């Protein structure tokens, strides 16, 4: 029963956050210095001051002449029906643009998580087995380097090597798997630095545990001990870490998507902020925020499900 109560509390907290986020998004329109309708119009007319009658019409058409709470509720109602307005830049419905962008970002995130796992699991296990010796030292040093590298710079260097010099991969843009390789490599490897260290330290702890010692004493081979007895124990922690990393991956997406011209949410938000495209900014913020809140909630639930000890933390 208490578990359900805790779950309900968490869901309630998530809902409150969403409402707060929507208030922030709504506030964007009104936080502009001066008259919002005038500002928007002059932006659409490349800075020319609009005349008063047109501004009044525009204000009425946006509903900006009504009281704030009424405006908010109307806006929220439209939002819940998926009407996010039109982009000031392209004139397309924002919801349509967001849908395409979200798909591209999800593809990149999935590929980056794969790269992250493919790099950090084997390297972390290897470092743990050789703890204190040369492979361990090399892997740890490289992980610090990976954490210290600006990801856009790594992206440019990889572009130089694989696209410009070797000509193996496309320079950027959206397309097949070949376009996905470099951005996923950059995002995945920049996050792998941290994951490798966690995998290594969990494995070292597990290798000293009684059940692993017993498994070794039974004469099991090292790979079987690792796969059958060490990894399952670290799985809950690993999944939680991956979930948190996936949620935080957005930070790198903003820059990396722009470097590679990948049409995802990160480059969309950056472009919207750069061109002060309010409806796009608003919608992107809400979509990213909702995804982030949902992701964090999912991580907590998953952790509690996998590890009963974590249930109290829910």
């Amino acid at each position, binding site marked *: 029963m208490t578990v359900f109560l805790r779950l309900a509390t968490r869901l309630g907290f998530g809902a409150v956050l969403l409402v707060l986020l929507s208030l922030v998004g709504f506030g964007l329109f009104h936080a502009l210095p001066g008259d919002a309708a005038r500002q928007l119009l002059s932006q659409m007319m490349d800075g020319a001051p609009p005349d008063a009658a047109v501004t009044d019409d525009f204000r009425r058409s946006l509903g900006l002449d009504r009281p704030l709470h009424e405006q908010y509720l109307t806006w929220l109602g439209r939002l819940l029906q998926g009407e996010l307005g039109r982009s000031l830049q392209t004139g397309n419905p924002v919801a349509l643009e967001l849908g395409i962008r979200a798909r591209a970002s999800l593809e990149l995130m999935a590929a980056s998580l794969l790269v992250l796992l493919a790099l950090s699991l084997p390297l972390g296990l290897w470092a743990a087995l050789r703890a204190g010796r040369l492979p361990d030292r090399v892997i740890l040093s490289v992980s610090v380097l990976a954490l210290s590298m600006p990801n856009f710079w790594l992206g440019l260097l990889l572009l130089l090597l694989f696209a*410009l010099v070797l000509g193996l991969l496309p320079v950027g843009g959206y397309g097949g798997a070949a376009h996905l390789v470099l951005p996923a490599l950059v995002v995945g490897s920049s996050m792998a630095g941290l994951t490798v260290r966690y995998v290594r330290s969990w494995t070292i*702890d597990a290798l000293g545990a009684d059940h692993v010692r017993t498994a070794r004493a039974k004469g099991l081979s090292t790979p079987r001990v690792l796969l059958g007895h060490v990894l399952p124990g670290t799985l809950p922690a690993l999944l939680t870490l991956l979930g948190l990393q996936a949620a935080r991956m957005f930070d790198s997406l903003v820059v990396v998507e722009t470097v590679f011209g990948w049409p995802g949410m990160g480059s969309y938000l950056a472009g919207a902020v750069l061109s002060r495209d309010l409806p796009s900014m608003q919608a*992107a913020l809400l979509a990213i925020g909702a995804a982030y809140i949902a992701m964090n909630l999912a991580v907590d639930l998953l952790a509690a499900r996998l590890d009963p000890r974590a249930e109290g933390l829910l």
Partner: protein
Amino acid sequence: MSAASDTAAPPAPLAPRLRWGLLLLGLMALLMVLGPELAPHDPELGRLRDRLLPPSLTYPLGTDAMGCCLLSRLLAAFRVTPVAALAAVGLSAALGCAVGLLSALAPPLLDRCLMRLVEGVLALPLLAVALVLSGLFGLGLRAMVIAIALLHWADYARVLRNLIVAERGKLYVRAAEALGCPPFALLRRHVLPALCVLLAHSLSWAILTFAGLSFIGLGAEPGTPEFGLMIAESRSHLRSHPQLVLVPGLAIMLFVLALNLLGDRVRDRLPGASR
């Protein structure tokens, strides 16, 4: 008198990571202070005759596409991103520590309200919200610093409050209090190291973030000598003049590396730290 943590773990010699980290960080701090004075040329003055020159005696690292001296720009850049990062982290830490301290010492109701606020801020995607806020404040590095400080303080508030609450109940702290140890000394010895780790990591994160945002045009103003911006402006010459991209990137990397090495080392020495 030896530190309390020394009884738990044998005191390690000044490990290579700490030594390298301190050395590197010292060098970086020196460059931040002296850098612009050492510059051989005006970092913002372009001579179109001298575009894209290879390294020479006049221009030790060559010139960029605008004919500016790369070394001078690089040295000037040490006062842009790192200072912005310091400002953002300093503001966040000051605000966050004040809230954290207040929360830890306040009556339970206020404590709970403050912590809910902190949780709420932490549950937002920091960079996305900061980008939108900085857009409202009018873009640029200064707007970004304020936007990040408005969100990042919550990390400090939570860490400080939880540390104080966790430590206060422990037997050795009560013993130390009973022995007449002033509260400030307790804070310094048991809370400050953990705070230093957070400071080092959030500084390195801030430097990378500011450089990245400048690279995509959301940070420093165009033309400013800034690491990320220098890389962006030389991007089209990547193939013919890779040093224009390589050198500023290496400078960021060394700075962040120094901070990471130091932060890791201090973290490893915290009581209860795993490998």
